[in-house]
């Protein structure tokens, strides 16, 4: 057996090389939430603040926000609200769609936010998190970092699998 064949045979027996696990302190999991993604005009007509105010005045708790503008001049606003308030939020947005200038919106009924800490602004943590989840076929709805955590919005039915595969990619105390 030549040297290359030996290497391939060893790899076949032991499997592909595993990346060294990255040490983290913990993984947090939110309660059941619902996510809403709104497409709105950007620039001086950006109604994001008005949407947030509207939901707030109706006691709708917003646990996750991603807002960004695209090159076409649109604003995308992704929100996670308590699952029990989804219908109220949808009704409010439906009723005010025109006055708030909402072009379109969609929602997912059951999502959770998974957060890894500490993030400490390290690109390696973000890359490992995203790649691990996608390699395992888990659809990530949104990602952001805030202070010391990096968070992903996932469908609730994927969370158990996500936490298990993150346990292989990260070393927990």
């Amino acid at each position, binding site marked *: 057996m030549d040297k290359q064949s030996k290497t391939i045979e060893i790899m076949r027996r032991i499997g592909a090389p595993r990346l060294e696990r990255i040490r983290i302190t913990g993984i947090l999991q939110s309660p059941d939430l619902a996510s809403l993604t709104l497409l709105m005009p950007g620039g001086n007509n950006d109604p994001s603040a008005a949407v947030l105010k509207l939901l*707030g005045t109706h006691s709708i708790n*917003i*646990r996750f926000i991603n807002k*960004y503008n695209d090159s076409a001049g649109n604003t995308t606003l992704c929100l996670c609200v308590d699952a029990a308030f989804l219908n109220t939020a949808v009704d409010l947005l439906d009723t005010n769609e025109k006055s708030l200038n909402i072009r379109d919106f969609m929602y997912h009924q059951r999502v959770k936010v998974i*957060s890894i800490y500490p993030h400490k602004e390290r690109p390696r943590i973000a*890359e490992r998190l995203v790649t691990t989840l996608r390699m395992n076929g888990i659809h990530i*709805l949104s990602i*952001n*970092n805030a202070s010391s955590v990096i968070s992903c919005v996932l469908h609730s039915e994927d969370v158990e699998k996500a936490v298990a595969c993150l346990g292989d990619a990260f070393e927990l105390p």
Partner: protein
Amino acid sequence: MGVTETLEIFPLKVLRDLIQLHFLRIPTRPGATRPLFDLLERHNVSVKFLLEGCSGDFNRDLIICIAKDGFALLEPELKEVTDRMQAQALELQPSVAVVRVLGAHFDIRPGTSGLLFGALDQAGIKVFSIATTITSSLCVIPDDQVAAAERVIGRTFAVPKKK
């Protein structure tokens, strides 16, 4: 019912002299963003702000903010990295700042985010991007609007002085 009392928050953390990089329409496949994160890691460049979201048609938009000196290290390779990620384009927003509002408990107090972003909007502060989770919110704003944003947030929340 919204927030009525003046909420106390931690002293603001403001990161200045940053650049926002917006990678548009990256295909949703495992490892698509690895070339960028590898580049950042290789040059030891911290990611001060990170956001990824949908851009329709199953693609993703990725936004990061990094220090200008870090950007200078990455710049020679950015075109190649953008191509390898198969991003449709890279848009740069020079001279931005990230303002962190910590402690307002966005997760348990309805109306807090409306209060914050309503006040910024009313004061004419341009907010390029927002990332909010649990107790903190990061806002990307033009660097030359930092002083105005600090004044607005100081009027909206009870902000203790830095020690």
